[in-house]
């Protein structure tokens, strides 16, 4: 071996030794920290990805894209399975998908991770409520309320369950006890309003709903509650104002609220504003759904009667008989038209049909009594008046007919059964 080759060999050996030493050093010392650092970085990255997916899933959930939201939240959980809010979001999506059993499992997983994750109790309550297990729902809501007394939604939900369980007084006591915390919460005021409606205190209900409307002026459900309470209290002027606001907002959003239009028309009629009511009924009867809207056609018929609008009266009577031949109202309107056009005999016959079809409205029988009197047929008129009294024993007009036909007979002695 010459010196040069020996030197080369020595150089290569020492190089290999150095590389080996570095490698061994890495594995035994610095490598540990590197691995830990890498693990921490991976963990951090997973958390970031989980958070991003959670945000995305929530957006998808809120926009109603439930299947996509479920996939995305599962992705989030694949990155970080120990985040209770992800399990709760998963549960909420499953609730909306109607998979309630699986939803409960998701909420329970959240509670295993964090036993005091209040939202999980609340949403478990929602599932129990969907199953009509009101007591269990109450337990969950009440427990959430106890864990977090600062959030009014829990105590409101618990009170609503008590109402479902027929414990309105307890619900009210519970809300009032907590109202010092939530004095300025629209939801609490709204629920107190519902309770006042239930016990028939419409005045108090209106105060609560008005308060709620002030606290949450953009919440249309509150204005609707207010309007309904005002109608129930026969405060049609205030109700008309509330309904106008509601309908304006519904129109802005492109919502078709036929139910509110009906209420509005009713208020207008009560306020002796039949022309405006007729305009609403015209709207309600002209579209596709309007064809079969019995209440709208009846409303149109009534406004037409008041306004002497023969065209609409005819249309309403025909449509009512066509869509509900087994109800008396269309026949009654048809009889009114026949009477007004001088066809008394035809009107009386039409009223026979109307009388047959109702057992709670004395009007067809009273009208028939009037027509028979016009036809100078007192016995038939008396018979019709007795029929009216059979339907409504306190009907003053029918009683007058009977009294006039038999001046010596006391009303109490008039046989109600016309066959007697």
């Amino acid at each position, binding site marked *: 071996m010459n010196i040069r080759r020996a030197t080369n060999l020595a150089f290569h050996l020492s190089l290999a030794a150095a590389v080996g030493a570095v490698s061994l050093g890495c594995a035994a010392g610095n490598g540990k920290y590197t691995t830990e650092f890498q693990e921490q970085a991976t963990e951090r990255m997973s958390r970031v990805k989980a958070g991003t997916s959670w945000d995305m899933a929530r957006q998808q959930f809120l926009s109603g894209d439930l299947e996509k939201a479920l996939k995305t939240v599962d992705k989030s959980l694949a990155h970080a399975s120990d985040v209770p809010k992800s399990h709760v979001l998963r549960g909420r999506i499953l609730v909306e998908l109607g998979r309630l059993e699986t939803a409960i499992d998701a909420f*329970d997983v959240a*509670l295993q991770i964090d*036993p*005091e994750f209040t939202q*999980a*109790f609340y949403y*478990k309550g929602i599932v129990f409520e969907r199953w009509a297990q009101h*007591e*269990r729902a*109450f*337990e*969950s*809501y*009440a*427990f*959430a*309320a*106890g*864990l977090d*007394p600062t959030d009014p939604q*829990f*105590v409101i939900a*618990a009170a609503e369950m*008590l109402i479902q369980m027929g414990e309105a007084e*307890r619900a009210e006591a*519970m809300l009032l006890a907590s109202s010092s915390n939530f004095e300025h919460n629209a939801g609490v005021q709204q629920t107190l309003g519902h309770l006042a409606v239930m016990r028939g205190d419409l005045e108090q209900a209106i105060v609560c709903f008005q308060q709620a409307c002030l606290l949450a002026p953009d919440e249309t459900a509150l204005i609707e509650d207010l309007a309904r309470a005002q109608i129930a209290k026969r405060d049609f002027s205030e109700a008309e104002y509330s309904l106008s606001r509601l309908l304006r907002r519904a129109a802005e959003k492109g919502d078709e609220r036929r139910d509110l239009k009906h209420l509005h028309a009713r208020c207008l009629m009560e306020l002796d504003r039949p022309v405006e009511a007729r305009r609403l009924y015209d709207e309600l009867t002209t579209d596709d759904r309007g064809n079969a809207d019995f209440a709208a056609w009846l409303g149109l018929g009534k406004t037409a009667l008041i306004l002497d609008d023969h065209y609409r009266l005819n249309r309403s009577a025909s449509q009512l008989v066509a869509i509900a031949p087994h109800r008396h109202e269309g026949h009654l309107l048809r009889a009114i038209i026949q009477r007004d056009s001088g066809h008394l005999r035809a009107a009386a016959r039409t009223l026979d049909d109307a009388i047959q079809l109702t057992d709670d409205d004395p009007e067809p029988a009273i009208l028939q009594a009037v027509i028979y009197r016009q036809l100078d047929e007192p016995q038939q008129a008396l018979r019709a008046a007795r029929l009216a009294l059979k339907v409504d024993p306190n009907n003053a007009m029918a009683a007058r007919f009977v009294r006039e036909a038999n001046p010596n007979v006391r009303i109490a002695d008039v046989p109600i059964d016309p066959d007697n």
Partner: protein
Amino acid sequence: MTHDSPNPAPTPFRVLVCDDEVSIRAVVERRLRAAGFEVAAARDGEAALELVASFGPHVVVTDHRMPKLSGVAFARRLAESPENDGVAVILLTAQAHTISDDEFEGARIRRVIEKPFSPVRLVKAVEELATRGIDRGAAADEAERAA
């Protein structure tokens, strides 16, 4: 125990929690443990009755609405055995007003906590019993309940 007790009990103060709702039971258990009590739990009245002999609780915290045996019925069964004379019962309920005096009679219920309740309040009630001593406070509690 974390509370200041003038006469600390020689043995750990034992609390038996009875509730059919596992997640609620878990929180109550957890809060009581955190307050320094020794805690056992049962999912219904029958299971709780079986545990009483082996665990020897000073206080039983029970939900009222449970399958098989209501909280009050469980408390009455508990009170039937003379060896449970020293055991005080705290009843958790949303329906205290529906429980008649006859039902309460003989159930040895020392506290009724209305739902919704804060777990902090429950822990405080147990701590009070632990601090005042179950027997010393019984008369006062009875008067309080009657009021």
